[in-house]
């Protein structure tokens, strides 16, 4: 095959074929356009404001490494005037996080950014290794996801930072949209499409500047810029590789590469049809779009690996289990969801002493959440105890001997 030339500069050999439009680009034009598009996302959604301090949730993996690299480049080039810090979570998994934290430490030097590492042990008194020792491998991703989400917020608080950016990409978002669509959970689907999350009540906002970036292009960007990132599969989620929504997305991409962004756009359009939800889309698609916010408390799956991306539904099941004080007995999580949710809302109405529910809620829309704070730890929560404290309660009950 004769080498193709770059569609932009017309002089260099094309090395990349863009999934979204099949455009053939050379290395430097690709790097340029990738950065320009992230810049477009940031400016059209007004993600940053000058003087803002921003924590980059950094795992050492491809997405957060690319995010850190691109944000550093853009901040210098376009003079955002933001102060970037790397924030890493140490889940306490020997042989997994150790190596990736080493990568983050190198990134901190490479990008000249301060690095803060917060550990589950200091925050919760439990490492993931200890959690797994207690409850087994099944269902541990739920714990890890809940803990991580709060850990990022708490880490940011320790640093006095009010904005955390994460490396979620278009594939991740499309995956979450599909999962929620397949579950019939439009409320969560709606929230998962937002580029900015974090309610007004929460002190830390979250955003996803790579929301429109293809995973493929993120990997190619990292490759062509020779970024230093770490790849590993969490040792506690051996099935992660088979995440079914993920395979579905990748299979669709193979046949029709634009499918990923199409799913993201469909998700955004569907989100606008969900009552009580704020619309979200790339700022240039809807002119009147203000920076939208949604309650993050239980949206996108917390785990960096494919398995955790399964999203919040597992959590509903887990909560139900916890209340029944059988946290360790995980059933087939996915299929149990509708049951779990029904139980949950029934129970909630009793527990929380909320005013009588208007009729029977037949739609799987979560009742309007009352935002308060967890009475134990003060973290934002719509219930008496936040999810982390609820999980911890179950764990501490099961902690062998150590109590007293």
């Amino acid at each position, binding site marked *: 095959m004769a080498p193709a030339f770059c569609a932009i500069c017309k002089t260099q050999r*094309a090395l990349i074929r863009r999934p979204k439009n099949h455009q053939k680009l050379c290395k430097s034009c690709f790097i340029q356009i990738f950065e320009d598009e992230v810049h477009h996302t940031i400016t059209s959604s007004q993600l940053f404001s000058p003087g803002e301090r921003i924590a980059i949730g950094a795992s*050492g*993996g491809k997405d957060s490494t690319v995010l850190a690299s691109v944000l550093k480049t853009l901040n210098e080039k376009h003079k955002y005037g933001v102060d970037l810090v790397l924030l890493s979570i140490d889940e306490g998994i020997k042989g997994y996080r150790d190596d990736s934290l080493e990568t983050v430490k190198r990134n901190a030097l490479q990008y000249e950014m301060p690095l803060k590492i917060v550990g589950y042990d200091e925050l919760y008194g439990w490492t993931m290794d200890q959690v797994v020792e207690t409850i087994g491998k099944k269902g541990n991703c739920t714990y890890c996801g809940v803990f991580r989400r709060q850990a990022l917020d708490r880490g940011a608080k320790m640093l006095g930072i009010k904005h955390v950016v994460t490396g979620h990409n278009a594939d991740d978002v499309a995956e979450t949209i599909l999962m929620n669509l397949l579950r019939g959970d439009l409320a969560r689907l709606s929230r998962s499409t937002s580029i900015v999350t974090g309610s007004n009540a929460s002190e830390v906002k979250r955003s996803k500047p790579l929301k429109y970036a293809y995973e493929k292009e993120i990997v190619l960007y990292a490759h062509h810029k020779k970024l230093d990132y770490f790849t590993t599969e969490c040792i506690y989620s051996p099935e992660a590789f088979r995440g079914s929504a993920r*395979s579905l997305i990748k299979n669709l991409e193979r046949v029709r590469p634009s499918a990923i962004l199409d799913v993201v756009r469909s998700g955004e359009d569907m989100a606008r049809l969900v009552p009580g939800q704020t619309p979200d889309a790339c700022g240039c698609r809807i002119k009147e779009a203000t920076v939208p916010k949604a309650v993050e408390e239980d949206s996108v799956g917390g785990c960096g690996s494919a398995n*955790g991306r399964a999203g919040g539904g597992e959590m509903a099941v887990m909560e139900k289990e916890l209340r029944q004080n059988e946290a360790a007995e995980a059933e087939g999580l996915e299929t149990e969801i509708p049951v779990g949710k029904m139980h949950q809302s029934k129970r909630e109405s009793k527990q929380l002493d909320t005013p009588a529910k208007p009729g029977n809620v037949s739609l799987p829309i979560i009742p309007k959440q009352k935002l308060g704070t967890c009475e134990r730890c003060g973290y934002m929560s719509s219930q008496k105890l936040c999810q982390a404290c609820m999980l911890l309660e179950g764990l501490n009950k099961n902690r062998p001997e150590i109590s007293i």
Partner: protein
Amino acid sequence: MNNDAEQMTTEGTPKETPGVAQEVPKIELVVEFSGGLEMLFSDQRRHSLSMPATDQDGKPVTIASLIDHLCRHTMRDQRTELFVLDGHLRPGILVLINDADWELEGEEAYEVQSGDNILFVSTLHGG
């Protein structure tokens, strides 16, 4: 199978001496794995290999036959389905042929040349 693979990676040029009619000419390539695929290939990123320039039917080696060769001779892990699904490279694995996206080069039909660098990158792993 182990011995076979050893040969493939250690075998140098000596057998290419012309005049030995039976010998199939060999091609030398560098195959690299990253993004988590290393774990299927002895945790080693870079593999130099030498393989027959034509397949059993006498056709030039393509990426498709290279993938087959890698599964038979280089992979040290039982889980071939993490690399190949339904007879094709698993979706979500990128291939760069001399740094160019294989989609620009004809994908599986690309005829491998001696000296090529073929990189397989998984996008499927978390961070």
